[in-house]
């Protein structure tokens, strides 16, 4: 028989996310009605994409661990593909890139069988050493360092870092009442919530730019507003979804808000370096997949190791 077992807390948390989306939809509908001359189509497109992303993520999480794993593996694939399509690569390295793609399958396989020891060194050690070997065998030395460096940065960011979010699902269930799914929801929700809140606070109060050379729209007011709101939310949600106590959950909120900020601007720095605005147009209103998972590439590994050190 088909066995479907979902912890009620997770259902409630998912319902909360849906409720937030409904509220946002209502607010935007109200704004569109109230200010007919203003153009809200970008905002509406962004919200529609949110509905899709949240819907797919929640369904996968509620149905099955393996489906969530495939979803994150696919996310890594899209992000790596977008990255490799944006950066300059060498004609000679076509087959090297092929191996980089294969690394995604293996990395998520280690997650699937919960082999922590290999999961944590496969890309930083083995792929780090193997890909340059493959390049050397091809024999093109012009631009070697740049090619090896950019490829490894991409693999670390889009595969290694993102796979930490998936590894939360492989953590043993006994420690946490809602299991790995609760931790994953906590991490992903707070990361995205922080993104949105930093944006909203910035729009409302933004005055003092933080790093105008990298991202002219980021302000101290936005960053701090997001930090406070996200930390408050973390403290509120942690007792239901995580094994963290009050102080730990406060720290987790600060960690996610700060790391999320730097993840966001690190992708901004790359885009500025390459002279492009959006990393793609896969997600209407957001840009590309990298524009969406940028914060997560920083929050996922940092939150993972924080909670792994404290509780596992």
């Amino acid at each position, binding site marked *: 028989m088909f066995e479907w077992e979902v912890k009620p807390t997770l259902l409630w948390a998912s319902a909360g996310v849906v409720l937030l989306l409904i509220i946002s939809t209502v607010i935007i509908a109200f704004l569109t009605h109230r200010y007919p001359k203003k153009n809200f189509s970008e905002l509406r497109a962004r919200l529609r994409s949110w509905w899709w992303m949240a819907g797919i993520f929640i369904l996968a999480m509620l149905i099955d661990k393996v489906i969530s794993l495939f979803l994150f593996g696919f996310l890594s694939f899209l992000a790596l*593909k977008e990255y490799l399509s944006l950066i300059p690569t060498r004609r000679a390295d076509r087959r090297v890139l092929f191996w980089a793609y294969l690394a995604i399958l293996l990395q998520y396989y280690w997650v699937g069988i919960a082999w922590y020891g290999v999961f944590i060194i496969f890309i930083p050690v083995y792929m780090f050493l193997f890909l340059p070997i493959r390049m050397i065998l091809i024999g093109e030395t012009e631009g070697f360092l740049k090619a090896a460096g950019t490829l490894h940065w991409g693999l670390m960011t889009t595969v290694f870092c993102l796979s930490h979010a998936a590894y939360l699902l492989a953590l043993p269930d006994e420690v946490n009442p809602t299991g790995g799914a609760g931790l994953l929801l906590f991490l992903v929700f707070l990361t995205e919530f922080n993104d949105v809140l930093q944006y909203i606070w910035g729009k409302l109060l933004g005055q003092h730019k933080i790093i105008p050379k990298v991202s002219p729209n980021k302000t101290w007011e936005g960053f701090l507003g997001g930090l406070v709101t996200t930390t408050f939310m973390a403290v509120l949600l942690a007792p239901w979804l995580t094994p963290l106590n009050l102080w730990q959950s406060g720290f987790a909120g600060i960690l996610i808000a700060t790391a999320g900020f730097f993840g966001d601007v690190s992708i901004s720095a790359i885009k500025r370096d390459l002279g492009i605005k959006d990393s793609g147009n896969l997600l209407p209103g957001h840009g590309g997949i990298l524009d969406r998972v940028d914060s997560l590439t920083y929050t996922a590994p940092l939150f993972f190791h924080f909670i792994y050190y404290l509780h596992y």
Partner: protein
Amino acid sequence: MFNRFLRWLFFGLIVRPFTLIIIGLNIRHTERLPQKGPAILVANHNSHLDTLVLMSLFSLKQLPQIHPVAAADYFLRNRLFAWFALNIIGIIPLARKVQARTDPFVAAYTALSQGQILILFPEGTRGQPEFMNHFKNGIARLAKNCADVPIIPIFLHGLGKSLPKGETVLVPFFCDVFVGEALQWEGDKKHYMQKLDAAMHELASEGNFAPWE
């Protein structure tokens, strides 16, 4: 009938999931694509994937109307290959080496008169990956003889990286598809070729592509 069903299956189950998920398309100006035939799409040619990507721009319902014009000497070289090219891909074969005073496009005129949408690569061959060769003049003859059929230039980027000529290993890269405005025939071959050339280069300059050396 059976072949038509096979063609539909091939595109629905293999080609579309492949081009939309493994490759991934960044399409600009979709609204410039023709809603119905007759029409001719012309694009730069870097890879066998070009045809499949251009055919994926249309819905499966429109599939029976879409036909790539392709080199007879290459695609009809043996029976099995010819069956696949003619019935599954749905090519209209074109003789690349033409005898004097024959028109290679006769089959194309017939298809256009039946309201079909044709796909053409005026570079004549895939050539060097991610490098655009000059368009051959044949396209101007086609434009002249079908003066009321819109010809839509499309610039493709990325597929030459994914699967260049002579390679068998596919490496996924996003593919950029920039659709241009339909061109009209204005009575002069040379002028037409210049206009087409300018349109392609303008589309190419819309992208800010990283070098691939």
